[in-house]
């Protein structure tokens, strides 16, 4: 009874607050309406996302799709053709895609009530991240304003964490946001070692004696699921298995979080035995078996570059260099962070990778085209090519370098999105207070 009263009271307060503050910009900007008419961005340096850079180029789009892309265009664009935005001196890039993220699932790390990223239990293939994705997260606008326009939202708990979804970051609700409601299955591969101590004072590792059993349990679960589909009709439905349908016809991938090289080899053997498509996630040691990954065509969603080496004797800059090594070996990989608010720095992770082995365009691909390919969305997003979604960002300078990376405008499927956020508002509020800018 008491609780209900409390809820009512809060509700009343909320209404009051809404009325009172209606004059202020909302914390989360209003989603942009559908694209009206044609839009041309002219005289820009366009980074296509597939390695090509077009100088003095024009890109045009209509109904959310790219319809025009030319370097030194033969036609002259003017207001009669649609909305023309002069982008002289500007850089245009495909919208950045954050993979393996919990944006929208977690709002404040330390506040339990705001965390919807990890369900309890060991095998949860049927939980779907898309239904928890919060379009009104205060975090999302801070990602968009840095150029991150898409996210693969992935669950994290147990051994089988659940099914990921892919969203665009300017939406009214999760249905509206979904690019792909059910993307792939996320798995945490068991670890051969367990950490002792606690987060603030870690005290080493111990051998995980249950490793073999945990792997066997996982394998059994997959075998049972496979058998479930081969058998066909069932009196009793297994919701978990039902959610794994697409794995065995390879229409969906299994994303496996794994870091230690030996475990990775176990994962590969596991996938081959079960006949499933896998993507390695985090995969800090992946550079050690880059040739194997290239040969077997196993993609990698690589964990952050801004990380310390795993091993004491390892190259102290190894995490910076790993993308370059995967690139060189011909592995399909993308760079990820694996977090939420931190995703606004994804372009700088790529920048560092560029300082240590990638070209700038390769580094860009690692956060645009490559993730799209890994999620099999490259026919829609990831590059700026005719027929694809007009999801792009206009930067005042080099996107990958914080010194110059300033996103001035952004479009998702032709919709020009509002790049404001609460942090910008607070900046303005207090700059005004002090008379500085």
């Amino acid at each position: 009874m008491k609780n209900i009263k409390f809820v009512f009271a809060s509700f009343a307060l909320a209404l009051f607050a809404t009325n009172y503050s209606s004059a202020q910009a909302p914390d989360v900007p209003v989603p942009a309406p559908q694209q009206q008419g044609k839009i041309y961005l002219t005289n820009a340096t366009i980074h296509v996302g597939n390695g090509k850079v077009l100088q003095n180029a024009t890109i045009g789009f209509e109904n959310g799709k790219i319809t025009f892309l030319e370097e030194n265009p033969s036609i002259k664009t003017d207001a009669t053709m649609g909305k023309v935005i002069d982008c002289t001196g500007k850089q245009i890039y495909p919208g950045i895609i954050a993979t393996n993220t919990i944006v929208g699932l977690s709002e404040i790390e330390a506040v339990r009530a705001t965390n919807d990223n990890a369900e309890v239990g060991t095998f949860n293939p049927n939980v779907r991240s898309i239904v928890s994705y919060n379009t009104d997260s205060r975090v999302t606008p801070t990602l968009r304003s840095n150029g991150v326009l898409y996210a693969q939202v992935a669950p994290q708990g147990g051994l089988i964490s659940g099914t990921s979804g892919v969203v665009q970051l300017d939406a009214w609700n999760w249905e509206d946001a979904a690019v792909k409601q059910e993307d792939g299955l996320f798995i945490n591969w068991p670890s051969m070692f367990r950490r002792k101590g606690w987060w603030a004072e870690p005290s080493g590792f111990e051998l995980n004696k249950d490793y073999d059993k945990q792997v066997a349990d996982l394998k059994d679960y997959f075998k049972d699921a496979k058998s479930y589909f081969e058998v066909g009709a069932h009196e009793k439905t297994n919701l978990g298995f039902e959610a794994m349908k697409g794995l065995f016809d390879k229409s969906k991938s299994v994303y496996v979080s794994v870091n230690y090289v030996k475990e990775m080899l176990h994962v590969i053997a596991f996938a081959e035995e079960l006949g499933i498509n896998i993507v390695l996630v985090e995969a800090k040691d992946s550079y050690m078996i880059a040739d194997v990954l290239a040969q077997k065509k196993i993609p990698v969603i690589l964990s952050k570059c801004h990380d310390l080496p795993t091993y004491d004797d390892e190259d102290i800059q190894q995490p910076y260099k790993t993308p370059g090594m995967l690139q060189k070996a011909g592995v399909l990989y993308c760079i990820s962070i694996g977090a939420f608010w931190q995703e606004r720095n994804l372009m700088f992770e790529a920048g560092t990778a560029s300082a240590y082995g990638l070209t700038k365009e390769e580094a860009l691909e690692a956060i645009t085209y490559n993730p799209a390919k890994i999620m099999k969305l490259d026919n829609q997003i990831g590059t700026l090519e005719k027929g694809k979604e007009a999801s792009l960002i206009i930067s005042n300078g080099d996107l990958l370098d914080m010194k110059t990376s300033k996103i001035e405008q952004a479009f998702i499927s032709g919709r020009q999105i509002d790049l404001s956020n609460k942090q910008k508002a607070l900046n303005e509020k207090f700059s005004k207070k002090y008379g500085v800018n």
Partner: protein
Amino acid sequence: MAQVFRPIVIALLFLVQLSVFGQETTFHRNGPDDYREGVHAFINATIFKNYNTKIEHGTLLIKDGKVVEAGANVSIPKGAIVHDLKGKFIYPSFIDIYSSYGLPDPKKQPGTGNPQMETNIKGAYGWNQALHADYSAIKNFIADDKKADELRKIGFGAVLTHMKDGIARGTGAVVTLANDKENNLVVKADASAHYSFNKGTSTQDYPESLMGVIVLLRQTYYDAEWYKGLKDKREYNLSLEAWNNSQSLPQIFDAVHDWQNILRADKIGREFGVQYIIKGDGSEYQRIDEIKNSKARIITSLNFPKAYDVEDPYKALWVSLEEMKSWELAPTNAAALAKAGIDFSLTPADLEKKDDFLPNLRKAVKYGLDSTIALKAITYNPAEFLKVEDKVGSLEAGKLANFIISSKSLFDDKCDINENWIQGKRYEIKAFEPKDIRGTYKLAFSNNTNYTLKVIGDIAAPKANVIITDSIKPEVKVTYKGNDITLAFNPEKKKEFNKIFLTGTIDFDTKTWQGKGQLSNGDWINWTAAQTKGPDADTTKAKKDSTSVDLSKLGKVTYPFNGYGYEETPKAENVLIKNGTVWTNEEEGNLTNTDVIIRNGKISAVGKSLSCAECKVIDANNKYVTSGIVDEHSHIAISYGVNEGSEASSAEVRIGDVINATDIDIYRQISGGVVASQLLHGSANPIGGQSGLIKLRWGYAPEKMKIEGADGFIKFALGENVKQSNWGDRAVVRYPQTRMGVEQTYYNYFTKAREYGKALSSKTPPRKDLELDALLEILRGKRFITCHSYVQSEINMLMHVSDTFGFKINTFTHILEGYKVADKMKAHGIYASTFADWWAYKYEVIDAIPYNAAILTKVGVITAVNSDDAEMGRRLNQEAAKSIKYGGLSEIEAWKLCTLNPAKMLHLDGHTGSIKAGKDADVVVWSDNPLSIYARVEQTFIDGIRFYDSQLDAQKRDDIRRERARIIQKMLDDKTAGAPTQQPAPKGKNDMTIGDEN
């Protein structure tokens, strides 16, 4: 009941009967007295009277459990029992200086999981449960023959026993390992006082860090001194009484885990005029010069690490080169101590298998330890350390008759200890090798049958045959013990049931055997065997000692002892950096085509076209040259425990006590251009601990990393961490739990400190309190606060507290809502050190904005970006550059956020933070604009010493690969040879624990 009781009674009787020591006793005896004088003469032995006096063909005479005389010409009294030890060796029995023999195992109470602020020991004891100064080993000692036997077997005759539990461990007792009533075993009842860095079974929260342990010891020294001077003892304190009473004894400190702990223990001792005897863990060789400089005598272990099972190269990843090198070089430790002239004792205490002690000792000798010093380290030194050298450790007249008899020199791999005599009583370890009966004999039966008998092979297990023809040589089974001998053989193989059995006695003088025998038909005969020829000369070639070690092929000790260490610590260079783009951080601004000269550790000139004849030239064309990065907020390089968060204030703890000079993150920081860091206490409590300001002099000892003459700083913290908001539902005990309580915590402590300060200048000064001393320093403007802070209300609050008490806050660190109170901070002249763009990790950072640094800067607050994180610490240039993106600072302003401004906050800007002649040569050469994501560090100089060089780094990686491969081969050889191995596993950074694990 009776069943339990009976064995005890029997045991007691047994003990009393064994009693040999001391003529008079207070004990009543059941039955007639059985006092024996025990006069024994051991002759013809090689006697080590002490570790460096060797007597060939000597005699040792003992009586009544003591040595009468040992020498070459000792007259043997009439009636003495004579033991002919021809070919044998006598050594003083060894002394284990680090035992807990005969003491009960400390028991830990199961923890409740709830905070425990006070001791749970009842009685008039001290305030902290980890202080057991009142523990007396002698009062708890109960002889344990089974345990004693383990040590006797490996040559030990006496031990120093003490309780290995807690930070102060009370007194130890020297006892012998004889099987006797405890009263007769005591060599010295109160022989030593013991300390350690491990709180052991204590369940009290304080201390929870190594720095907390150190300060608890320091404070206890002060408390004990104060207590001693108390005229009116209102507080009677058993712990402090005992502490004071044991100060005149040898003081022994257990400082295991790494060599740095030895230096830490020694530093505590220096403060109080105590020279500890320090127990190390066998890694002293990794920093032998510093250990030597401590002047401490060392107790160390021969607990050599097992080889790793590295057959799987992927598993081998988890074994660092440091661990590999430790495996290879641990056996050189004792030799290194000896070579450095450090007095040390060796203990078997840490060995998993005590039987490994002597083989390991011999291994140490093969790895360069002089055998005389080895002997000294287990005989004289432990005795002398404990001031019982008048009783044990050598075989001079009047000392206890504690000695071993061995078959060979102790350092011969084939040496057996035959007997261990303790207090004149014999303990047989391994029977003497029997006398030699090998040779050719004429075996004659009384029935006139004769055989030729040939005895060959090992002396201890000879083989024999009767020679009938060259090809018919039936085997004879020979068994003999003492003078008894039996022979059994079948002279005709063809016939079954034809064995002849002989039994007789040996006359060793005439080399003849004789006795009776029974033939297969049951007839008895007499027989004799007379030696006709002695044993054949030993033709088996002496096996080449396969275990000899080529010391020149061992890896080198590096500083620090890991892959990225240096064989020689780098020294300052004179360098001319030519034609760079120099960012000065001075009025000159950013200069192109400019030269910088580094000379004698300082920047000596900045300008165009400079020349320097003695300088090494670095071409900086197309490169950038800046002063080094300063990290205002770092937690790298701290040994065990960043937080002493058990109480609301831990102002007394000092990060400077626990600097970990071996942390690989130091090297990783310098690869990112960092030259100096403030190592901060954590944010677990409102008043944290004192900071350590270091320059990242990779390869140097901890004390040499500290910045000389730097001001003292202290960490404060506000908000969720100090309220324990995110520590789980049980963390609701410690005050404060709200921001209101946080304010009152400060009022409470500063009020106390102010009153303490007044009292100090009064006629009756109060007890010295290290916590209040630190707070008083703040009030007196001698210690400076860096306060972890997030929301504006609390920032404002602390400024009011400081106004009230009249001190100045130096820096608000993190300060994510600093932009909301920038004007107030400016008015107070407070610095801001912030994260560039962190937020959303907890509720109190919900309003954090990446524009914070820019707003603060524009308002006029001196602002820095900090890392709080070992990874981000090496990219602070990038974090500074974010202020260009968020808030539009100029490059010059942005660059100061990670260099000059943090240097100002740490009061180091007179020495570092800009490129200016006369400043420390803390200089970084970059491949690109240092604020660009594409910039890489090429060289980092600290005080003119090139600690990082990207090309040398590549070289190091090559070296690591080769050195790993070499040792892996060696480990695999060891495994193939059957040596035990251990499985590789990842290690945490802080594997040391200061509490018992359970």
